């Protein structure tokens, strides 16, 4: 019974990975324009979160928004790194 469950789990993992691979192959690597659009979305969200930080009066709420700004900043840096690498590698 246990061995069957393990086998089923393994099959599920393999199937998931195969599915992800297929999806990635279908979509292909992101283009520079796509990454730029994603950066723009992060920037727009960033501005909204700044506004939310400024209008919130609860301490915990402000702390939450500032933390979110930090995460968005990280996200922007990651996207910029990917874009620069893509551009350097002659990306689309």
């Amino acid at each position, binding site marked *: 019974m246990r061995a069957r469950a393990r086998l089923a789990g393994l099959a599920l993992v393999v199937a998931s990975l195969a599915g992800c691979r297929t999806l990635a192959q279908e979509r292909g690597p992101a283009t520079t324009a796509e990454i730029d659009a994603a950066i723009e979305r992060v920037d727009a969200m960033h501005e909204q979160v700044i506004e939310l930080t400024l209008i919130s009066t609860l301490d915990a709420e402000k702390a939450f928004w500032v933390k979110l*700004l930090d995460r968005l*900043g990280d996200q922007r840096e990651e996207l910029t790194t990917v874009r620069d690498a893509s551009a350097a590698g002659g990306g689309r």
Partner: protein
Amino acid sequence: MSGQDRIDRRAALGLLGAGAASVVTGCSTVIGARSPRMARALPDDLAGRYAVPEITAVRPEGTDEIGRAIRHGGRMDVLGHDLAYDFYVPARADGPVPFLLNLPILAGDKPVNRMVCKRLACFGIASGTIERPGNLFRQCETLEQLNENLVLTVRIQRAFVDWAAQRDEVRSDELGVVGVSMGGMVGTLLGAVEPRLRTLSLCLAGADFTDLLIPTTARRANAWGRQRTDIAGISMRELQARASQSLVDEPARLARYIETEKVLFVTARYDTTMPARNSDLLWEALGRPERKYLPFEHYTAILAIDWMIDAVVTHSRRRFAGLA
């Protein structure tokens, strides 16, 4: 000397060494801008609101040589205010030099300004300060008056930059700002609306005036908050809520109009006057510019003033050289 004394002495020396090392390494901690962004275009309504006012009269009051700097003092009339100014130039300069506007800390007085300007002159940089109109947080201003006063302060600083840029001693295309604490917050507003400023060094600054009304250890701001709550018969929390509606000219909001790479951001690690949350908020709003840390508190950061000015000069020169 007993064994215990030797151990105590070693422990003391060890602690001293660790302290010195933390100051040295702390001062050199740098995070460069990894994902700088361009400035958003300034909307017309903001540009109109912060228009450069005319200086209607300038009355020079004397010149004196202080170390390697020559100070020109005087008064000028701007928007009906009679304000004192100081303009410093290096004593030995072969032609025009860059100019950095010095925006001091809220409690900053003449000796601190003089120290900063003198040091900048040693590096061959002209600098100057102009008095703020009124006394921020000292006249029990309403929230609306406080906001208007901030806008007025920024407009007057623009007029002073304009005046300095026209002086023969100054290179009109090499202008910048160095602002400390409240001066850094005013510097952010100024940097957003004054496109001629090529470099902004914002030290111990932060954002969110509303949030700063309660947790700050700055006595003037705290006293102002208490007065306003007493007069209006409201809680500090209620004052905060009202402030978030009234204090619209907020550094975090205007930071988006500043190009990230113009900025050098200096933070004191143990700052309780400008808490980390407010400092981080402005840094994020500016698009994560180059950031340096000082291993001090807000007021003890004065101990690192020379290091801070060195960093400001290096950043400003790099910006000016890149634009040459």
